[in-house]
């Protein structure tokens, strides 16, 4: 046997936790079909909220992936100004509850702009009105980029210094070295915590229900207010969130496995 044969790749692997996902989906289907009143009614009523929750979560997460990386690179910068500003941003944002931040962006921020418009007599500022979904996405992105930047930073710093030196010694500039050498390695390290951030963001997206966004949680509250059946309403809402987070967790596991096999 030769010593350096490539490791055999398992062609088929079954992730058993899919059973849990299937169980929750089955439970939802059973409730909807066996007890259509009220469960089917609830599902139909919150249907649009489901899409809003998914939409807000995915758009925010994609933005967080980009801004989190930029903040992480800023925190690793040699420039004291860039490093200082980004560190203050992370420390401040991490220290304020997500709910307070969302309320700030939706209620306080537009008022601030309007006041500036009044003071400086800028018409477009004075007439500024916040749009709920955009402000929710802005708020979640602003808050979660701070957390995500820490995940990126830990991942980048876990790659040995020699990798950057080897890349630079070949003539690559900092960004070329980051792109081709450091980040591809860091991504493998940070996949589990990034997946975790995604799941947390998905759950925290329920906070946008307080700033006039008709997401799943808000639609649930509306249904409860109209029909007075809190137990059934919140069981349904909880199961819908659970199915989404369990699915996300499976996706992360799949990506982890795939990135490991590429080695």
């Amino acid at each position: 046997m030769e010593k350096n044969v490539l490791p055999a790749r398992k062609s088929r692997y079954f992730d058993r936790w899919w059973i849990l996902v299937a169980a929750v989906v089955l439970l939802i289907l059973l409730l909807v079909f066996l007890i259509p009143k009220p469960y089917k009614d609830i599902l139909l009523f919150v249907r649009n909220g489901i899409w809003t929750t998914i939409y807000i979560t995915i758009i925010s997460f994609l933005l967080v992936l980009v801004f989190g990386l930029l903040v992480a690179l800023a925190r690793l910068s040699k420039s004291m100004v860039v490093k200082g500003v980004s560190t203050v941003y992370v420390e401040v944002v991490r220290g304020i509850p997500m709910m307070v931040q969302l309320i700030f962006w939706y209620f306080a921020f537009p008022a601030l702009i309007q006041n500036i418009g009044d003071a400086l007599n800028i018409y477009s500022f004075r007439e500024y009105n916040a749009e709920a979904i955009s402000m929710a996405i802005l708020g979640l992105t602003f808050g979660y980029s701070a957390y995500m930047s820490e995940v990126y930073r830990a991942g980048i710093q876990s790659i040995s210094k020699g990798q950057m030196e080897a890349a630079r010694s070949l003539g690559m500039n900092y960004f070329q070295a980051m792109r081709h050498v450091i980040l591809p390695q860091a991504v493998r390290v940070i996949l589990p915590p990034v997946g975790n951030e995604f799941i947390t963001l998905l759950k925290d997206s329920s906070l946008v229900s307080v700033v006039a966004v008709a997401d799943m949680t808000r639609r649930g509250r509306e249904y409860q207010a109209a029909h007075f059946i809190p137990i059934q309403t919140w069981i349904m809402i909880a199961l819908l969130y659970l199915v989404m987070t369990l699915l996300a967790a499976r996706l992360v596991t799949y990506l982890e496995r795939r990135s490991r096999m590429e080695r």
Partner: protein
Amino acid sequence: MQSIISIQNVHKYFGQVHALKGVSLEVSKGEVILIIGPSGSGKSTLLRCINRLEEFDEGQITVDGIPLDTAENINAVRTEVGMVFQQFNLFPHLSVLDNVTLAQKVIRKRSKAEAEETARKLLEKVGIPEKADYFPGQLSGGQQQRVAIARALAMNPKIMLFDEPTSALDPEMIQEVLDVMLNLAKEGMTMVVVSHEIGFAKAAADRVILMDGGLIIEEAPPLELFNYPKEERTKLFLSKVL
């Protein structure tokens, strides 16, 4: 003869530690230089200053007529200077072939086919053409170091720097790396090597330099330095390594 590396009065501080205390050195084209000295003597630091992986605080270094001052010049110099590290520093997420083609594609803007052709020739040259599709983690230390040499050579450097290239290797793998280095020396490559491989020095070096305490203590052709050292410090050091 005009020197291809010119180091003038270089000082380097690590915080309070004065690591290089005014080192000057001229290297001619095609010369092979071996730097020896106890650990902490500044030999690796000096080597790393040549491609500015280490910033220096005072003095000047010119490589192939380009002074190491602006970021642009530093990158220009780095493309002409290959470096081989003690810990190999291969890119573990890329295959051996991709390790050797990456910088060619990114910096030299060579096509994939062209870069791969160059890479396969170089892997042939360092004696491991059959490992092209393996990952670094699947190779022995000696094989990894030879890939690292091929990776550096792929940029067609005018100068090669070796930072203790055999120190992290098992004894039976040292020779395969030294053989590759000897061949390079024969082909006329300008080489600066930090190493205690006395055999390599005798076979290939034009000059051996002994450093200690951030200074060059003595420099001479290998046989002269090893057999008739002038300085007490050199005699003391050689008595321990020979």
